């Protein structure tokens, strides 16, 4: 056991960043990990006003975005020989190929080409119809009628029917459902009765005809249509054979033998090695142009080498200057550096007497040289942020946002105003208490490694002593849940929709204990409002308030990188639209 433990430590040290749990959930998942591992996304769309232009604007311009392949003649023979297939390098999927149960973003990617939903995400983070060709919403916004495309067929040739949608909903509402979604929160009428087993059917879902289904909810919000339309109908004939209410075992047994209506069908799955797919002739948007698709397992130690040798056509590579340079120098790769849907932040316990005063929180933000930290951790591949939203989101605003540029004098002044006076030993004190912050740090995290020395020095200048303790991330999360912490660093992933519980009073993801009734009200309004322009205004106000309250020190929005062999064309990739969302339209250019 001892040997095993030390082995583990070594492994963790060597590969700390990739081993962190990859919590992707639904396609719209957000992750909170010290080493964020959300899937990479692309940034082809024009960004809105850049967030913080003070930090090396020139470098950023070069660093982020797509760099096309320069020399296709350098393409290795191994790649050019594959005239009817493409190989995607991926971290090993877990073999949960079912949209109800999948958890890692790697399984999500494969499911993405097998199971289409009624609606799909667009490049800008809003949604459009996919398998549904029309969606009717009732006057009171409580009944949603989905019209499934007439030509939608499963890969076995049988049509996708409204009853398949109902069947899929039953699986979600089943009492033994243990996937990542929270189906009862969709408020479908009759769902909890089905969940408890008191009803055999979900009364709120009506099959109108073969291709039409209507869903009634007891309460609606902006996410209702996304939740209901985001469902990928499963074939009742295939998945329903052994299903009994209250027992999903027979459905889970088919996890490694998926059958959907998407552009590809799985032909072979070798655990930990590869997933083979072939184009589905019945796909309603026309059979995919690349006939064979293979997801091959790579690790961070082999992924660059495999791209270089032509063994893979696409892979996610860790963004850093060395890697970018090496990939670009290969010449035959399109290198796409894309904004990550997420942000890193330093959490402060707003309930701790140290941080209850907004002036103190602002001072700690002013007094930290964030640009230096971000540059040390990510170089030009991350930007300092000032609101908790991606600058490519429709909800983003730079209007009336304080950028909290590094200003130790201002920070000192704010601390003085808050009543923290410099004591005889140079440390500030108030009511006989020294200003000492206990920072819970995770080991082997590039941001924490860059942050701690700079923060210690910056805060020392302010007259604040920073004490750090190194803990396992799960241990820090446990301290967080108990409210027994002062500061830690973590990162959030962002969904395409700005609704979140991170900043509302006692919200499920509210790590900092921040509470502002105005913000609560704005988030509640934003969630209930269906008009995009009105929502924009509401969220802008919320972000302005959060920006002024400084409940946490917002640090950066980083980037991801996709390297794609230049022989593959036709992608449509944005930070919201993943590479697998456009795989069906990709062509091989020889």
């Amino acid at each position, binding site marked *: 056991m001892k040997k095993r433990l030390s082995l583990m430590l070594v492994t963790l040290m060597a590969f700390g960043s990739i081993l962190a749990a990859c919590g992707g959930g639904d396609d719209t998942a957000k992750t909170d990990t010290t080493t964020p591992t959300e899937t990479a996304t692309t940034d082809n769309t024009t960004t809105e006003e850049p967030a913080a232009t003070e930090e090396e604007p020139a470098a950023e311009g070069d660093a982020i975005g797509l760099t096309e392949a320069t020399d296709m003649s350098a393409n290795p023979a191994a790649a050019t020989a594959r005239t009817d297939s493409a190989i995607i390098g991926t971290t090993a999927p877990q073999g949960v190929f079912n949209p109800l149960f999948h958890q890692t973003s790697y399984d999500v990617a494969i499911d993405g080409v097998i199971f289409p939903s009624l609606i799909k995400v667009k490049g800008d983070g809003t949604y459009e119809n996919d398998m549904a060709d029309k969606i009717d919403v009732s006057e009171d916004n409580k009944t949603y009628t989905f019209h499934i495309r007439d030509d939608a067929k499963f890969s076995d040739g049988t049509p996708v029917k409204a009853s398949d949608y109902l069947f899929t909903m039953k699986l979600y509402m089943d009492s033994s459902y243990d996937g990542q979604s929270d189906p009862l929160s969709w408020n479908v009428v009759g769902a909890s009765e089905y969940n408890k087993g008191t009803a055999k059917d979900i009364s709120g879902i009506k099959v109108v005809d073969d291709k039409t289904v209507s869903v009634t909810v007891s309460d609606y919000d902006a996410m209702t249509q996304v939740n209901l339309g985001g469902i990928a109908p499963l074939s009742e004939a295939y998945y329903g054979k052994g299903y009994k209410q209250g027992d999903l075992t027979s459905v889970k047994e088919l996890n490694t033998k998926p059958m959907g209506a998407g552009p590809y069908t799985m032909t072979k799955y070798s655990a930990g090695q590869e997933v083979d797919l072939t184009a589905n002739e019945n796909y309603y948007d026309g059979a995919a142009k690349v006939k064979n698709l293979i997801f091959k397992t790579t690790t961070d*130690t082999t992924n660059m080498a495999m791209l270089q040798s032509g063994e893979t056509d696409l892979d996610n590579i860790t963004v850093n200057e060395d890697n970018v340079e090496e990939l670009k120098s290969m010449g035959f790769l399109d290198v796409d550096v894309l904004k990550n849907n997420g942000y890193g932040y330093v959490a402060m316990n707003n309930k701790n007497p140290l941080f209850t005063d907004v002036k103190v929180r602002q001072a700690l933000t002013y007094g930290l040289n964030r640009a230096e930290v971000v540059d040390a951790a990510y170089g030009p591949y991350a930007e300092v942020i000032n609101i908790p939203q991606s600058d490519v989101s429709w909800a983003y605003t730079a209007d009336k946002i304080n950028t909290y540029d590094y200003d130790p004098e201002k920070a000192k002044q704010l601390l003085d105003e808050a009543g923290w006076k410099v004591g005889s030993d140079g440390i500030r004190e108030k009511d006989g208490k020294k200003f000492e912050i206990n920072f819970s740090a995770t080991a082997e995290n590039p941001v924490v490694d860059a942050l701690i020395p700079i923060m210690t020095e910056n805060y020392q200048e302010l007259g604040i002593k920073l004490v750090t303790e190194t803990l396992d991330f799960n241990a820090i999360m446990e301290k967080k849940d108990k409210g027994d912490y002062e500061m830690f660093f973590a990162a959030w992933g962002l969904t395409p929709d700005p609704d979140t519980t991170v900043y509302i009073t006692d919200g499920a993801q509210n790590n900092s204990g921040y509470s502002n009734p105005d913000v609560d009200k704005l988030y509640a309004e934003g969630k209930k409002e269906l008009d995009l322009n009105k929502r924009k205004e509401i969220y802008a106000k919320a972000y302005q308030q959060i920006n002024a309250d400084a409940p946490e020190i917002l640090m950066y929005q980083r980037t991801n990188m996709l390297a794609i062999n230049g022989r593959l064309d036709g992608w449509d990739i944005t930070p919201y639209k993943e590479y697998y969302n456009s795989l069906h339209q990709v062509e091989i250019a020889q």
Partner: protein
Amino acid sequence: MSQYIIRRLLQMIPTLIGISIIVFAISQMVPGDYITASQNPNMTAERADQLRAIYGLDKPPVQQYFIWAKNMLTGNLGDSFQHKMPVTEVISTYVWNSFAIAIVTLILSWTIAAFVGVFSAQFQYSFFDKVVTLLVFLLMSLPSFFIGLLAIKYFALDLKLFPTGGMTSAGLNASGFAYIKDVASHMILPVSVMTVLTIGGLTRYFRTGMLEVIRQDYIRTARAKGLKERTVIFKHAFRNALLPAITLLGFELPGLFGGAMILERVFAWPGIGQIYLASLNMRDYPLMLGFTMFLAVLTLLGNLLSDILYGVADPRIRLK
């Protein structure tokens, strides 16, 4: 003999119970569970409670232990949270991939180490011995991922002799001999690196064992009666020098199935080591506990095996 084995097997039962209690207790003391480790940002408190109820994580630890232990007795290790399939199925999916490289490595490293050890003992302090000693210590002290990466760089990327990683070529639908050939070509690099790393320690065992035996009186007698040097070394000395190593062989049993976490990662080998590590990170208790118990059983069996082998190889030791 069979009585001895039966008695030893019976003795394993309390040991296993003890191990299961300790392992379970440690898992309970580790902060966080699968729900918190999966870091789903859309997780509400209600949904987390529902999930804990489905997984039985809401029950008191003592009750959880007995449910787990009872299921284990019926051969049911539970369902992996991450893989959504029975733990036994997850283990059997990956463990044979690990076994394949481990067994080849074992055979190779033991054969090579035996010969090298014997020769360097026979020619103690010779040039050959010194070079071997130097090499052995050099290889022992290199970190595995470093040699692994270096091997990929030179043999796979620069010389293009072997594939860079994985177990089969992508899209290969071969079966029979072609499949074995493909897997074998993928195995060469990881097996070589693992062999090189384990050979060091083993060589020292064989060398020391041999040196001790060579100094015995009966070896001198054998030489004195005019036997060929080869007969002396391999017939008279080698068998006796093997005795301490045989004990070691029994302990290799869990290693055969345990997987190599670091090298599996470096070579993208689909083994159980990485799966086990992920189960620790994700707090996938059924898989983590199930596999730990599996290794514990193998360790105990390995111990028993080395005792029996020792008795077989050395008639002076009577097992009662």
